[in-house]
């Protein structure tokens, strides 16, 4: 089996009492290979967090299938879900609210091992220290509380907690966006080191395309519940096909005054459309500079534009 995770036509809809249905994730399909890092990018509200959470089965999917190492886990029961969560773990966005303020770091990191009854108490303690050292903290930190740590250190605690059950697959939900840029680089390098050391597979959710380029092997771009483009990282950055990917790339500042001076800036573009009861057609049509008449009537499906490079835009694919 080559694929760690396969997602087929996955949907997650939320019903909003009076205003209709929010299609947070709408018929999404992709694969993640063993040992691969798939970057998932998009603006806030595009459904990337929901997708991550649905894959982790925190949310119940409304349609489609999820295969983990070839096994269908879309509707597995409580007991099997427990076993699944040993293999798949999650790292959350906000290191300030994802750690229980009343638990010590040792308690936070070892909680999973206690619940799954993995080791005896002495081994659990040893393993906790080992994990803390693995993520760049040390044994002195074990008995402290989360408020005593900086954002970067807290995120390291969150990573240690995710690694405690020796998972094969980790959903990283914007693990770096709440941190300072210099600290982001530290954490990204840590993720890379852990991947090769522990042979991990990541789904790396982020909104910062530039940072994702440093970590991901392949990148998927999401817009209003749909994946609009998916390709190898280098390919995506060099030859973006979908206008939305182009738009995202053009928004990233380049740290060089001479380059910036000659770069046109995006101004006054409309904001992301409301994801509730989307109209027919391409959801990006309202903001797209290439919008043609047919864009508003029928949406495009993902088609292969070159080997391994898929994009959902007919106009651009030609």
């Amino acid at each position: 089996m080559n694929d760690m995770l396969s997602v087929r036509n996955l949907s997650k809809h939320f019903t909003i009492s009076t205003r209709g249905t929010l299609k947070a994730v709408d018929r999404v399909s992709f694969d993640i290979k063993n040992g691969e890092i798939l970057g998932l990018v998009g603006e806030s509200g595009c459904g990337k967090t929901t997708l991550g959470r649905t894959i982790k089965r925190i949310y119940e999917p409304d349609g489609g299938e999820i295969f983990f190492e070839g096994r269908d886990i879309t509707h597995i029961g409580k007991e099997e879900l427990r076993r699944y969560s040993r293999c798949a773990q999650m790292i959350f966005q906000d290191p300030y609210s994802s750690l229980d303020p009343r638990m010590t770091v040792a308690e936070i990191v070892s909680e999973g091992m206690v619940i799954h009854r993995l080791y005896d108490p002495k081994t659990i303690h040893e393993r906790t220290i080992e994990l803390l050292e693995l993520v760049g903290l040390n044994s002195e930190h074990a008995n402290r509380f989360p408020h005593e740590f900086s954002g970067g250190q807290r995120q390291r605690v969150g990573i240690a907690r995710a690694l405690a059950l020796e998972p094969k697959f980790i959903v990283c939900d914007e693990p770096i966006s709440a941190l300072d840029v210099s600290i982001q680089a530290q954490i990204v390098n840590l993720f890379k080191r852990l991947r090769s050391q522990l042979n991990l597979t990541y789904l790396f959710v982020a909104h910062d395309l530039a940072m994702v380029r440093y970590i991901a092997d392949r990148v998927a771009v999401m817009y209003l519940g749909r994946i609009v483009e998916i390709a190898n990282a280098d390919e995506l950055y060099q030859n973006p096909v979908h206008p939305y990917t182009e738009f995202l790339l053009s928004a990233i500042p380049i740290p060089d005054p001479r380059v910036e001076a000659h770069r046109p800036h995006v101004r006054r573009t409309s904001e992301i459309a409301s994801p509730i009861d989307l109209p027919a057609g391409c959801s990006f049509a309202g903001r797209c500079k290439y919008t043609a008449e047919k864009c508003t009537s029928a949406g495009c499906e993902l088609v292969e534009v070159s080997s391994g490079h898929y994009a959902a835009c007919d106009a651009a694919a030609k």
Partner: protein
Amino acid sequence: MACGTPWTRSFEGRKGGERMSGAMLEVKDFSVSFDTYAGEVQAVRNVSFHVGRGEVVAIVGESGSGKSVLTQSLVKLLPSPPARVKEGSKVFIEGVDISDYSFNQLRTIKGSKVAYIFQDPMTSLNPLAKIGAQVTEGILCHRIMSKKAAYEYAVELLRDAEIQSPERRMEQYPHELSGGMRQRVMIAIALAMKPSLLIADEPTTALDVTTQSQILGTLKALNTERGMSIILITHDMGIVAGIAQRVIVMYGGKTVERGGSQEIFEKSRHPYTRSLLGSIPRLDADKGHDLDFIVGSPPDMLNPPKGCPFSPRCKFAMACCGVVPPEEITLSTTHASWCWLLHPGAKRVYEDFRRQYPDLYENGAALP
């Protein structure tokens, strides 16, 4: 963009980025401490800088480097105690010394001369008041115009901040707006009293890259079209390049380097600035190498290092760095760095530094 309001004239002479003589803001030997039970936290230590008219100056540094404390203390926005602006700190606005101003005297400056945009648009708006009420609050407080005129003026302000359908927004509450929209409302509120200096404290930190580039575009337009001076506070060197004319790099409550935007980005002479620049991923560079990052975390300001604040984390630290604070070394009329590497006695280490961090476009390399 001009609105038909009684004090539009205050903008005359500054349109199109035209510069008048004299600095908009001048800060000399500014120090701020917090008196806590654990002792004195020296958040800002002897910082001096100026902002010219119509100039955009960026203050860059990691969290905890004192950049927000510095700018908020300029008009005493921080509660005292615990915050305490130390003796000898001087602030001049348009040449007038405001260091000893009382609370009431400062009220004449807040809003009309200096306005703030705070970091977090989610928490800095009142969730119980309509956008309209929040934008007009300042104007009505100062009884400058009637309620009706203030309403119309507020709509105009929202439009200036590039908010679509402003009339509808006036009747909405903050929770109905997206993050970028709320930040625009904050900008509109800041513009209400026509300030000549806008201090934007991490205005884009909580936002998406796409929204970020739009907000930066709005700030840039305020600068070029109205000649407004802006202080942009950020930890992200990436956003500085497109907007700032000068950059001040802060670390551990001190200025470690200052210079023109190109001087800082292309030929910085401070290891901290270089590491900050190295930690930003570049879209137009090779991917192969690891990102540069700074080991460890910022210093504890209860007991700041005796010498250079960056010395414990510096790859090039020498014996003297941790003991004696470095002097200001002038590199050009605008560029100065506080680092022992530049001392004539540190030639060997300096060469190491230059080997690791060559200047951009050095030796006539092709310009983009």
